[in-house]
């Protein structure tokens, strides 16, 4: 029996079945994006609060668009204009939002655990849109959808994650998700950003000490964004990063022509990824963006709409893992 989700706080606590269910639910929404008229009435009358305590453009727009295409209204709270700037506590801010009776809250926050903290104190579904260096579950789901579409499966794939793993919520969510499906995950990046404890996150996670080893035979390469502020604590020259860790077309050849390249965006072209790779045939970056919409629509439909909505497209039951 599939356990219905109350919130989406992270991938770690989800079962493989729950993840597969969400991926399947996203299928009809992928189709939907090809329609000329991109508006459903599924969540008409529902309100989704977008509480972005940390700056975000891509994820916020993706959630806002997902909500709009489902017919929901959105309430926007943005870091720059937020009352947090005036010293209001997180709890007071979300209680204020809750008092306006949203049907769900999407939270991005620079503190790890903030969505869970809020979920424990509010009576509405909470979706984690990225918390600190903890998780970014919708990113992992859209990555999984992208990989599954291209490779037909997740099981047994060899996935390499490149970059600053320590500070990456994208990496953590991807590691949890892919490991649950039996993928083998290889981590590579500057050694101080790839501590050995990462291997304890999930089964089948290993580190390697050279980029050739990291790429050789990889089915999927997830390139992480270099958070440029990290280069300064402690100082690491950008040239150094490029020399050792950049995904170039030459290095990509080690992985073979069928390897997929994913990047959560926004990219630092020429830093962690060579433009020829970013724009090359193996790159999935724009597909990831489109799939992000489908995943977020599926989630909002599931969490905010609930079973009561009848106008929803029937979720696909085929193509299960």
């Amino acid at each position, binding site marked *: 029996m599939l356990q219905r989700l109350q919130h989406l706080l992270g991938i*770690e606590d989800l079962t493989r079945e729950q993840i597969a269910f969400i991926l399947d639910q996203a299928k009809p929404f992928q189709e939907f994006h090809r329609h000329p008229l991109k508006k459903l009435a599924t969540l008409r009358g529902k309100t989704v609060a977008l509480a972005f305590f940390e700056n975000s453009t891509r994820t916020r727009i993706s959630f806002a668009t997902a909500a709009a295409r489902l017919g929901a209204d959105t309430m926007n709270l943005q870091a720059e204009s937020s009352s947090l700037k005036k010293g209001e*506590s*997180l*709890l007071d801010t979300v209680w204020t939002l809750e008092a306006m009776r949203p049907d769900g809250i999407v939270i991005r*926050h620079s*503190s*790890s*655990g*903030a969505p*869970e*903290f809020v979920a424990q104190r509010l009576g509405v579904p909470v979706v984690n849109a990225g*918390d*600190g*260096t*903890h*998780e970014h579950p919708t990113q992992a789901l859209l990555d999984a959808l992208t990989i599954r579409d291209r490779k037909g499966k997740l099981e047994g794939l060899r996935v390499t994650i490149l970059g600053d793993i*320590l500070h990456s*919520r994208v990496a*953590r969510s991807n590691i949890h998700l892919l490991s649950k499906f039996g993928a083998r995950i290889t981590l590579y990046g500057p050694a101080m950003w790839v*501590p050995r*404890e*990462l291997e*304890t*996150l999930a089964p089948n996670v290993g580190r390697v000490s050279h980029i050739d080893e990291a790429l050789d035979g990889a089915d999927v390469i997830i390139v992480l964004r270099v958070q440029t502020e990290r280069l300064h604590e402690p100082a690491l020259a950008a040239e150094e990063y490029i020399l050792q860790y950049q995904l170039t077309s030459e290095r990509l050849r080690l992985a073979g022509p069928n390897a997929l390249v994913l990047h959560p965006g926004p990219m630092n072209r020429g830093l962690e990824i060579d433009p020829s790779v970013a724009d090359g045939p193996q790159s999935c970056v724009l597909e990831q963006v489109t799939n992000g919409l489908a995943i977020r629509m599926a989630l909002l439909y599931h969490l905010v709409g609930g079973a009561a909505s009848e106008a929803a497209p029937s979720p696909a039951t085929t193509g299960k893992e």
Partner: protein
Amino acid sequence: MLLIKNGRVLDPSSNTDASLDVLLDSSRISKVGANLSEANAEVFDAAGMIVAPGFIDLHCHLREPGQELSETIETGTRSAARGGFTVVCPMPNTQPVNDSASVTRGIVERAAAAGTVRVWPIGAASVGSKGEALAEIAAMQEAGIVAVSDDGKPVATARLMRQVMDYCRGLDLPVIDHCEDPSLFAGGVMREGPRSIRLGLKGIPAQSESICVVRDVEVAKLTGARLHIAHMSTSASLEYVRAAKKQGLPVTCEVTPHHFTLIDEDVRYDSHYKMNPPLASREDRAALIEGLADGSVDAIATDHAPHHPSSKDVEFDRAPFGIIGFETALALGLSELVHPGKLSLKRLVELFTTGPARVLGIERKIAPDEPGDLTIFSPNHAWTFRAADSPSKSRNTPFDGRSFRGAPMATIVAGRIVYRR
């Protein structure tokens, strides 16, 4: 007069463990013996209970002056009394910092007015605990401090530590250090390890503490002063303290109940698991318990650190460090250490009495003419801790709702029952 009858007197100072009665006359102990009787005395029946010397807590925060929203001397000492403590030593990180005789006197006077348990303040080592100039330590000693510390942070530099230790050696005062290397600590919020990696919380490596312990032990060697390591949490720190003791240096240390009870794996996104030093590894906890048992650790200290709910009910990385601890200290010692057979009852009593007394350079015993401070507890009384019932102004504890076997039954200070369960 107060007559404690039928109890089991456990006094580590004289190795006493016997069924004895204790008579207190005014503020002192007047008689200890079998089957005492005294017509005019109020009788406390301690049948089935342990009668121990009054417990001393070397490390707490009473928040007064300056942060009375979180705690006051009055509320804090009432909570201490419920925990069986007859003496508490508040750290100087108040507002203003207790770095002068006038602040010390204010604390002592407020404590006398509160009239619950004895308050022996700890003075700042440096002015404002800023790590620059020496505080008025001798003047504070006259006003009643029993040790110095810049707790909340380490004594800033080895050079300042040398000055503080040299000076305090002359005054015969112990120097208590909160050991941490600020550059390694670097904004961390929990112990670095698999759990911090999983939760995405910034880790503090264990070496942040032990590096500072090494520095302090070396400076103690240089100066010959008495060094006490506060809230020690790692096995490496313990090894350095052991080595120092072996060399005959006057180095002592304390461990908190939360560090012998909880570990980093227990941490979740709940600021009641956020303390400094952070909860350590499973291996560290095992080492600390070994140290508590074999005598390498001198005292159990609570590090009672009240924070008003509004300051603690925030995102984990934004919450202040610390938990309240008076009322659960003994119960945790019994439940976690004595009942599972890791520590003898006598050793536990030592860690609350003669151990901390020795750190302060005094004695603590149950004998005629000694101060009438006693802690009477039951090793078996079953109860559940409810933070909401605490006289403390704060509720920040991970032990709310925890059930225990063993509890303080009465706290006697200067011959007067200040708490009775």
